[in-house]
């Protein structure tokens, strides 16, 4: 059984989904890498930001 922490699960999800988004949504290799990186940063960034919001609400 594989039991990652919540954050590791987020990182894995963001990485795999970003690779597929990059390849399928852009045409050139350079644009694919840029868009994939952009999606990854958004995935992880939104999770970190919303985590802080929930932390502050709980306090």
């Amino acid at each position, binding site marked *: 059984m594989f039991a*990652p922490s919540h954050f590791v699960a987020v990182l894995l999800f963001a990485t795999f989904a970003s690779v597929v988004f990059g390849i399928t949504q852009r045409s050139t290799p350079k644009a694919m890498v840029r868009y994939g990186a952009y999606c990854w940063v958004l995935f992880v960034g939104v999770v970190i930001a919303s985590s802080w919001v929930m932390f502050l609400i709980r306090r």
Partner: protein
Amino acid sequence: MASKVQIPAKTQTASPGFLYSALILGWLVPGAGHLLTGRWIRAVLLFVSIGAMYWLGIAMLGQLYAPNTGDILDMLGFVGDLGNGVFYAIGRIFDMGSTPVQLATADYGTKFIVVAGLLNFISAVDAHNLRIGRKA
């Protein structure tokens, strides 16, 4: 007076074969549609990404949805799972993903499996677009 209308010469094009082969192959095996169109690096990346997402979901004790007529969310989950093609069939044949979800990570695993299927649908459509020349 004769007009100078140029009629393009008939070019011999190779037979494209079955038009939906990349779509169907890409759905059955992640990345196979891209391999068919000659984009093997994209094919490997898609196979590894979608395959890893699916098998990590199984390893996290995620649930595989079966065909059902119950809850609408279960039906949608089944449609998402179906996107994994052969992986889904292997999971069902070997009775994987049948453990009831009890841990948070198992719930994440269920989502990993569904999202892997949905990503594979996108990947298969992309392979089809490459095949018919809609995308370079």
